[in-house]
């Protein structure tokens, strides 16, 4: 049980409660049917229009996010271009900023 100045957290109590709640949920779960009668194609993934031609390719994930943040990502990807000279320029920028901050403030 730890307590920072402003809050507290006890993992053991949490786990005891989770254990108890799991028992309750398991009871609810066992009220339901466990399996299913195996029929032809019943357990195929639903894809309206017949057989699934392309199996899952989970590559273009989070399209919505990248589309919404398009300008930010365009800018970021241009900055991370992998050229060592640019890395050094960033370092020079860092040194300048740090010296400026430390000396002026």
């Amino acid at each position: 049980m730890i307590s920072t100045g402003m809050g507290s957290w006890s993992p053991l109590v949490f786990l005891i409660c989770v254990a108890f709640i799991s028992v309750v949920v398991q009871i609810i779960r066992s009220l339901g049917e466990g399996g299913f009668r195996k029929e032809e194609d019943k357990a195929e993934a639903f894809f309206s229009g017949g057989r699934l031609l392309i199996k899952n390719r989970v590559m273009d994930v989070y399209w919505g996010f990248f589309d919404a943040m398009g300008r930010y990502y365009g800018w970021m990807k241009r900055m991370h271009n992998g050229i060592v000279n640019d890395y050094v320029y960033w370092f020079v920028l860092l040194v300048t900023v740090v010296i400026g901050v430390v000396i002026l403030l």
Partner: protein
Amino acid sequence: MMEHAPALVIAFPLFAAFASHLIGRLGSRIRDIWVFASLLLTWLFAVFLNLEVMQRGTYAYTLGADISSLASPAGFPVRIVLVIDGMSALIAFMAVSVTLASFIYSRRFMERVSGGGESADRYCSLVLLFLAGMLGMGLTGDFFTLFVFLEMTSISSASLVAFFRKGSSFEAAFKYMIISAINALFLLFGIGMIYSQYGLLNMAAIANEMVLNFSFLDKVALSLIVSAILLKLGSVPVHMWKVDVYQKVPSSVAVMCITSSLVGIYVLSRILFSVFFSMSALTGWMIVCLGSLSIIVGVSMALPQKDLKRMIAYASIAEIGYVMLGIGTGLAGMSSTFGTVALSGGVFHIINDALDLGLMFLIAGAVFYATGKTGISKLGGIAHRSASLSVLFIIGMLAVSGIPPFNGFVSKLIMYESVFCLNPVLSVIGILGSILMLSVFVKVFASVFLGSPYKGKFREIPLSMTAVMWIFALLIILLGLFPGLALDGLVSPAVEALLGHGIYMGVII
């Protein structure tokens, strides 16, 4: 002999590194046993150091003196002095433990991916050199030794980056060598400025002098040294080399590279807490701003990546950002309670970061071992072939994002509840960063592990690799369930050691 543990902890891996090449001539089994035994011995020394510190408090060890704790026989320090306090003992212990685990993991891994013989000899020597460098950086008490061991770390890790002798590895190693050359140069420049002013190289002695006459030149030296160390850490805006390096380095070494960044954080905090503590408010705010930027840039650039190890590398940049957030708040609020709490959160996060991201890199290595690929578009459905690997990944993913009841949650809880006193926006950035981190790893999990079953060749993952990964997972779970033990036993001595700059100075003078 145990009284010379501080020196032996650094010297023994150094000796073992060169000896392992000779012993490798006799046969690979003997060399493996030799390396394992020397790592175990170093680990025992590190444990002993920790126990000593818990008993005695901070103490110094002078190399080659009659009485080892007498650092300043004539009023000023002579010889190489190692200072062991709570924080340096913790970092040394972490470095050795991670190297030991990584070596057990790497035995079968390196066999498969590089073929035994000569290259394995090279691997063992380089890893031991890397360890010696990290330990030296962690335990040293003066600036020049710091520089020497930093160079040792850079050279050995640069060779390890180029280990798989392919074009892309050479490119990454080349970039890394340029970066580390600049790093070392600026560090040396800053150290030289300080030396020219005070004529001293010992950190505590310089701190003592600076209390009285802190001048403009010291400020410039501070900026140069801090910039150089920030470059080594990989904080924004100089984080880009880290991604290239972590991608090309063998996975077992990637775990050690994470630890070396954390040693870099230790060096930063040592310099800012114990030497330049008069500028703590300013440097604290600077570190906090750079840390928040690191979190944001790290997680947002991790999302679009298509290579597994590059993603984890960006995630490690974000995690370093979290530690910087904690340490910066500790600096900026050095006299208030929230500063101490934030500092303990940051130090605890160092431990958690090594465990969580270490586990991630080990899993990435295991996937590479089994399938031979790291691009996430070519992988998929691994969960059907290896359920235990997916369970490990879930544990690591939840721990890195800070989901209760794992260890990441504890350190993030402590940090949020103290950093918000400095500025509430920082806590918001932290929470946002952790949810974005979760989305990064969910993307990885869904792409690599879920989906239709994997159709390619899937070699069985050897027991040594699985065992090491499960040990990491177990430690994650244990630290999550009993955070109080870690906080009282490991983190509080470290925090006290960092904040007690008076004691640090008193040990040397």
